[in-house]
């Protein structure tokens, strides 16, 4: 039995891998999926990808004991590749205007919507990286790509 109450644990990679650094979340989830068979910490962990559309995101984490959301946030270039870890009470830092989401409702607002609807996981952690390129194109910028292994490892620690 895992220490998260025996309930569902989900890691959600938010983003679009055809939008440069926005592909960070899906890239981390792909790396976790690659490790899942060999890493006991990932046993029975639900690995999912979301484009950030708020209702789907809420559906993915509803009822979970632990949700780890991996996303990229827009940076002015001075802190590209920096990693951030936010818990539920700090998610106002991801309010509108800071999210790199391609949709009209940011991750911060989605969390607030989930809260208003009583649909948040018991514990929610956001692992974010500062990215700089969110235009159409493939491939992470080097500072963001370099952050993938550390975020993969941190996600494994969180779900363990």
């Amino acid at each position, binding site marked *: 039995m895992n220490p998260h109450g025996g309930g569902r644990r989900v890691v959600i990679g938010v983003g679009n891998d055809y939008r440069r650094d926005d592909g960070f979340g899906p890239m981390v989830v792909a790396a976790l999926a690659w490790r899942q068979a060999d890493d006991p910490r990932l046993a029975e962990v639900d690995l999912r990808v979301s484009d950030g559309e708020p*209702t789907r995101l809420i559906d993915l984490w509803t009822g979970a004991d632990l949700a780890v959301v991996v996303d990229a946030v827009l940076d002015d270039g001075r802190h590209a590749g920096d990693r951030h870890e936010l818990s539920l009470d700090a998610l106002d830092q991801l309010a509108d205007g800071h999210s790199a989401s391609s949709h009209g409702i940011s991750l911060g*607002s989605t969390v607030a919507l989930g809260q*208003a609807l009583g649909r948040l996981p018991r514990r929610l952690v956001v692992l974010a990286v500062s990215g700089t390129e969110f235009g159409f194109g493939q491939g992470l910028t080097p500072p963001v790509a370099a952050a993938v292994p550390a975020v993969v490892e941190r996600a494994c620690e969180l779900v363990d």
Partner: protein
Amino acid sequence: MSHRADRTLDVRSLARVEGEGAMHVRVRGDTVEDVRLDIYEPPRFFEALLRGRRHTEPPDITARICGICPVAYQMSACAAIEDACAVVVDPAVADLRRLLYCGEWIESHTLHIYLLHAPDFLGYPSALDMAKDRRDLVERGLAMKKAGNEIVELLGGRAIHPVNIRVGGFYRTPSPRELVPLRERLRTAVDQALETVRWAAGFDFPDFHHDHELLALVSPGRYAIESGTIATTAGRTFEVQRFEDHIIEEQVPHSTALHARLAGRGRYAVGPSARYALNRQWLSPLALEAADAAGLGADCRNPYRSILVRAVETVYALDEAIRLIDRYEPPARPFVDVPPRQAVGYGATEAPRGILFHRYGIDAEGLITSARIVPPTSQNQASIEDDLRRFVGSRLDLDDERLTWQCEQAIRNYDPCISCSTHFLDLTMERR
């Protein structure tokens, strides 16, 4: 209230549209001098990416253009490639595609109605604020949307960027038994959708009308979704293969965006109101009854009332999905082979926001030599600008904040999926 002759308004982000872009309005005295909706051209990236890829790849690749309407991209891509390769799919496969598409309409329309558009009419700045007061409404919207999600997940293999779709059909088709629980969910959602129509019919709509030529697919005998020929409200009709003869995209000086216009005419609009005007007679009796009860006439020329059309189309999509499930018999094979040949193929389907055109050139080995994608939002740009120009011109007595907010609403009427066609949207209002 401001009556200054010269003033400038800046709004740095346009809320509640799918994606981002740029909007600029300039007013001098009582004259609206300039209105620009700048949308860049990300499909061009995908068009370039597709060249040299296998003819089987566009459904998967183009699905990544948009998280809201991946099925539309997949269906238009399949239609174009199958047209090039002269392949016709099994009727049961065609029905499953229509069912899948109904799922996307339900998802997309419900998202727009409840989370993006309704807050405008109820005086809330966002869906979040609406949810705090009226959780019941948002819950109803989410429940309906989930019904659509389940269709897409069952047929597409997953809810976003479905992986079960291939040229020629599906990798796997469901058994009739698998569709039974889905049917029950849809039945419940029909009642919620009818309630949605009644609810939205009670909104207070601004008195505003347009005279755009409306363009949509038509498929006599049924409401056009995944196939048809093209028609306009001015009586023009043409085959999808002639799309590029009738729809001209041209560069405009003020924008990096291409603007689409009807050859020999000018601006036109696509989307739910266009579909409704040209396909109303083929709505199901239930949807038609809902439309009549909501006061929608033969067509809908008030863009604010497009929320009602989306609500009626949601009723139709649910009703049609149930009809398709009830008559479903699995095809003998989930797909037909699509051997490549050197040819050009054309496909158009009705994405939730309007007609989505794809064209592919394929060589004898099955490699893509050319690709062109025309999404609905870029086709509506000129009409949105025209609405804004007239809308602002008749409301210059409003203060800056209120006028700007109403401009945003005027844009949201078209449910612009700017994710499909741009990356950044600022609204700038400049008064001189």
